[in-house]
């Protein structure tokens, strides 16, 4: 039914091996790309309308064209495989099952950018994925897809996997580059952007795993063909990792523009809510994006069906919309407690703040503390506005967007579920009691 680009062959036994991958059309884009100039490859990606799949949705071709090609410094492509945004597990799925898709994408993309050495930065916890990628890269070298003079093209590329050490912040691209240089993962001030001053002070492009894996299809079939899939400026397909209270958690490739309702209730995707429970809320794009209550995730404020696309999900701005983000789709049924979930996420951001900026370092701590006291029955009515105020004071005042990532969930949960916070404060026994017994296990 829906168009498949990345997961077309996911069920083919042995698709994780080079041999089977090649027999299903793998690595064909190399020849095609080498018959074009690097700028022509970039042009095709521009035409495709492909937007970054890591969360921000920035047009990939445009990002590539910003790369400073005037200096004689080396240029780098770095793949962001840090995947740590709560609710997101699509990159891991792709790398684990079809590792060569990413490797092929890295080769074609590196060629377009003129990179001679490229790195895949994988979060350290995914040692199993690192082992898979390293073995696959070895096979690609052996087959002549990597190394010197690839397929007689005169183009040479070395590709390495680099493990992280456990830190969500290293998903932020400049923190990632710091980490790759062997430093603490402290995000850099921007500008200069990585396109000018990236890895080792050289022009660098950082792209998400899924973004890069989309490139071979675009080169094989043309940018126009890719742009004809999807809806409006949301071209192509997107991997959505669905979790929470649904019958069929997992990774789905959807054509952008699918309705949210179909995604949640169709047996082809999430398969509805278990045990006949009602849908309460959805966090549609990883923990950092605003939470929406059931009515607003299914329909926009204007009453139009909400679609899985960049534009439709953000329709209404933050008053009544959210974001497609990373594609981490978290579903909450009627039994889930919004306050407790928010406290959990606030603890996450506090834990993961790198500590460079006071609004983020202190603000995330405050939000966690205040939410903890509300959740445990010691909240005051004034705490609700205090939270809103702290969130506002973080937003826009930090070096990197982790500040916003921590503030948006708080602001949106209170906007849409204020009554639930009030109920917690007025009547702690009714809601919090069932959680209180496990309090001690989660303070650490």
């Amino acid at each position, binding site marked *: 039914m829906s168009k498949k680009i990345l997961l077309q062959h996911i069920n083919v036994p042995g698709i994780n091996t080079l041999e089977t991958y090649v027999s299903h059309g793998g690595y064909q884009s190399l020849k095609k790309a080498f018959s074009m100039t690097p700028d022509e490859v970039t042009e095709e990606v521009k035409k495709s309308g492909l937007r970054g799949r890591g969360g921000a949705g920035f047009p990939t071709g445009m990002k590539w064209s910003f790369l400073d090609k005037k200096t004689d410094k080396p240029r780098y492509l770095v793949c962001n495989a840090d995947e740590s945004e709560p*609710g*997101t597990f699509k990159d891991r799925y792709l790398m684990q099952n079809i590792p060569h898709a990413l490797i092929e994408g890295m080769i074609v993309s590196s060629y377009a950018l003129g990179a001679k050495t490229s790195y895949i930065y994988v979060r350290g*916890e995914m040692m199993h994925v690192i082992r898979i990628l390293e073995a696959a890269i070895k096979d690609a070298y052996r087959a002549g897809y990597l190394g010197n003079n690839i397929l007689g093209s005169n183009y040479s590329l070395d590709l390495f996997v680099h493990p992280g*050490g456990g*830190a969500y912040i290293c998903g932020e691209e400049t923190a990632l580059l710091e980490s790759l240089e062997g*430093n603490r993962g402290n995000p850099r001030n921007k500008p200069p952007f990585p396109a000018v001053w990236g890895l080792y002070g050289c022009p660098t492009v950082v792209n998400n795993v899924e973004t890069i894996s989309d490139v071979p299809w675009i080169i094989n079939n043309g940018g126009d063909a890719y742009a004809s899939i999807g809806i409006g400026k949301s071209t192509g397909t997107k991997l959505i990792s669905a979790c929470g209270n649904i019958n069929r958690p997992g990774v789905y490739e959807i054509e952008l523009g699918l309705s949210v309702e179909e995604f949640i209730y169709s047996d082809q995707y999430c398969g509805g809510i278990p045990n006949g429970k009602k849908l309460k809320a959805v966090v549609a794009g990883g923990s950092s994006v605003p939470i929406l209550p059931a009515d607003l995730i299914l329909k926009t404020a204007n009453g139009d069906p909400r679609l899985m696309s960049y534009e439709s999900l953000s329709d209404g701005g933050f008053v009544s919309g959210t974001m497609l983000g990373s594609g981490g789709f*978290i579903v909450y049924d009627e039994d889930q407690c919004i306050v407790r979930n928010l406290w959990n996420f606030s603890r996450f951001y506090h834990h993961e703040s790198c500590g460079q900026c006071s609004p983020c370092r202190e603000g995330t701590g405050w939000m966690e503390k205040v939410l903890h006291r509300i959740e445990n029955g010691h909240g005051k009515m004034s705490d609700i506005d205090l939270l809103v105020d702290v969130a506002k004071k973080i937003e826009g005042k930090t070096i990197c967007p982790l500040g916003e990532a921590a503030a948006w969930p708080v602001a949106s949960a209170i906007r849409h579920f204020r009554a639930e916070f009030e109920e917690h404060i007025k009547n702690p026994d009714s809601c919090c009691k069932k959680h209180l017994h496990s309090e001690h296990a989660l303070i650490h």
Partner: protein
Amino acid sequence: MTILSSNTIQEINNIKSRYPEGREKSALIPALHLAQAEQGWLPVQAMNEVAELLKIQPIEVYEVATFYTMFHIKKVGKYVIEVCRTGPCCNVGAEELIQYMEEKLKIKVGETTEDGLITLKTVECLAACGTGPVLQIGPDYIYQEQITKEKFDQLVEDLKIKGR
């Protein structure tokens, strides 16, 4: 005498070649993983030896080792069980499981069993939210997904046998 084995030293030297000349510091995180895999944790001497291999100051190593959650700068058990405590896993029962694990192992999160076999820790989202609750077991970092009490019991039994 170094405490790092010649094998590990060799591997660290190999990894340096992945990065441009003069940028050997890039090998720091991979090197710390190797040192920790061998030692079980990162004693100061191991970090100092890594500094020497990468021609950087020891403080640069400590700085990094203390920033990243995967590095143990205090001694840990032979196996480290790290359970995800983030939202989506809690939607499917991680909180109750963590409590059960504490009871079963007779330790609190952050502690090590008396026999030195298992350290219990919590971690943030492991990118396995569709198959939660999830945990990983160091030093090999094997993921175990869709954990139940019964599965956890079995896991502990297996570690007891493996760790003998």
